[in-house]
């Protein structure tokens, strides 16, 4: 490689680092993303300079096809569907690294008939493993989020021993591949096992644990790129791959901490199933209902409001009508804020994007730690499609499966209104004792429809 190309890769790496650094402020984030894209362009152009002219036609074709699909999807996707898109793209990244690793393996063994040195073989095996697991795991995550397969945990007897056996078989096949590279059966075994393991590791994980899974798969897609860097002896792949790997790991940690669960506990899956039977025996809760007109009058009479959004808001697409509610309140000089729990939604930061899309200023979106002391001085809290993240049992009931999870202190407000479709349980399968509290009122019905009615009532006042 010429020194110019190596320098171009160095510049690309610097731009990736600067791009991520500029993500630390909302103001500079967009510029940062563009710098990062510029880095990618430089890396691509530098690579194209090494390509034989004769291959350029098909390369151009592949790039046009990929760009068209990418642009179409990125412009069309709804913001509520971001978790699905990120899951799918993680899978593409994993599969791309997987394919590059295999391509390199077959080029060396079948075309060039050479024997591959140890470090490279190991890198190929690692890349196939991480890439394969990322690919099928992400596809399962995508199908769960998209509702094609059940979002509830899928478990069966002997699941964990089976995973262990498959992993040990993978290690055995990997060892033989290092010794004898010419046998195609071994590499096929590695491919098949890694693809199956990706499916098996994600199916036992339930819908509300998806923030953890997506973050982890994001990290894997980076690690797969990193392993590919070791195969090709290419620094820019290693730098970019480790940045993404680190990013995914940090987000995974934040998500686990916000649910008070260990990563192992999330990955073993099946959360909420064993406890639901026990929880059903508990005393049933009597709730008080509130109608649309009373809700509107209540909003009219208060001086401070905090909204707690959850995944249900995304499902009902209620973010735009909540902005209208905010406008009505601000007309009346009511202090209006949003409290965002780290695991609200199906991916880290999901609620923030939805509310930003609804044209709500980002300084109104307050993190849990900063807003939790404000609830006791707040007149009215409106909970839209959130459940476990406001369940006081996490604070007071050591028997509860969510005990110890940090929650939003919504129950401390003077009045709490819960907008909810029906009396269903949260993801953890536990009753929410908040709903039975004397200061809690239930506003039943589709969040978008009921809040629209509240807003039109308020407009007439």
């Amino acid at each position, binding site marked *: 490689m010429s020194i110019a190309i190596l320098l171009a890769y160095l510049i690309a790496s610097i731009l990736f680092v600067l791009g*991520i650094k500029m*993500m*630390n*402020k*909302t103001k500079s*984030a*967009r510029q940062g*993303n563009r710098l*990062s894209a510029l880095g*990618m362009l430089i*890396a*691509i152009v530098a690579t194209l300079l*090494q390509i034989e002219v004769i*291959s350029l036609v*098909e*390369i151009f074709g592949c*790039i046009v096809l*990929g*760009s068209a699909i990418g*642009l179409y999807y*990125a*412009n069309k996707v709804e913001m509520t569907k971001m978790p699905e*898109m*990120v899951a799918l793209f993680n899978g593409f*990244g994993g*599969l*791309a690294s997987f*394919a*590059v690793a295999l*391509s390199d393996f*077959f*080029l060396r063994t*079948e075309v060039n008939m050479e024997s591959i040195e140890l*470090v490279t073989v190991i890198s190929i095996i690692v890349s196939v493993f991480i890439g394969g697991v990322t690919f099928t795991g992400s596809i399962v995550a995508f199908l769960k989020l998209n509702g094609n397969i059940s979002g509830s945990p899928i478990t069966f007897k002997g699941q964990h021993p089976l995973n262990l056996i498959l992993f040990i078989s993978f290690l055995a096949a990997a060892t033989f591949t290092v010794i004898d590279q010419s046998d195609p059966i071994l590499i096929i075994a590695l491919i098949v096992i890694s693809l199956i393991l990706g499916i098996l590791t994600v199916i036992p994980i339930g819908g509300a644990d998806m923030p953890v899974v*997506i*973050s982890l798969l*994001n990290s894997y897609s*980076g690690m797969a790129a990193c392993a*590919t*860097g*070791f195969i*090709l002896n290419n*620094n820019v*792949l*290693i730098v970019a*791959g*480790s*940045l*993404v*790997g680190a*990013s995914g790991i*940090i*987000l995974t940690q934040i998500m686990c901490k916000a649910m008070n669960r260990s990563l192992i506990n999330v990955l073993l899956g099946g959360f909420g199933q064993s406890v639901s039977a026990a929880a059903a025996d508990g005393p049933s809760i009597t709730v008080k209902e509130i109608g649309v007109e009373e809700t509107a009058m209540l909003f009219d009479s208060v001086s401070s409001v905090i909204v707690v959004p959850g995944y249900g808001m995304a499902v009902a697409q209620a973010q735009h009508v909540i902005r209208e509610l905010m406008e009505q309140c601000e007309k009346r000089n009511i202090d209006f804020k949003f409290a965002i729990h780290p695991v609200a939604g199906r*991916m*880290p*930061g999901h609620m*923030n*994007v939805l509310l930003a899309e609804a*044209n709500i200023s*980002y300084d109104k979106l307050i993190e849990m730690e900063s807003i939790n002391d404000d609830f006791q001085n707040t007149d009215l809290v409106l909970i839209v499609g959130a459940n476990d993240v406001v369940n006081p049992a996490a604070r007071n009931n050591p028997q509860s499966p969510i005990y110890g999870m940090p929650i939003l202190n919504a129950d401390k407000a003077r009045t709490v209104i819960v907008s909810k479709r029906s009396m269903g349980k949260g993801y953890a399968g536990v009753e929410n004792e908040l709903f039975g509290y004397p200061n809690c009122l239930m506003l039943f019905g589709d969040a978008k429809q009921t809040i629209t009615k509240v807003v039109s009532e308020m407009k007439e006042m």
Partner: protein
Amino acid sequence: MSSEALIILIYILVLASFLGFELIAKVPPTLHTPLMSGSNAISGITIVGALLACNEMGYSTLSKWLGMIALVLATINVVGGYTVTDRMLKMFKKK
């Protein structure tokens, strides 16, 4: 690959990971979704590997086809990832 070359690659891996941890810990939770889609686009750096894998004569070999599949997927990742991240970040406004 000589062991010296390998050690240098490991140096890069370790230091870049530490740098990544430091930088990403400072990203505010509000931006976590764009951070994920943006880092998703960065993991499309495999496109470099895919381009090199396509750099081979003729269509007869499996490795060429794998390279082309990887190229299409990595391009979707890069183009789609940066575009959707830009689309999201454009929406974050302060009034």
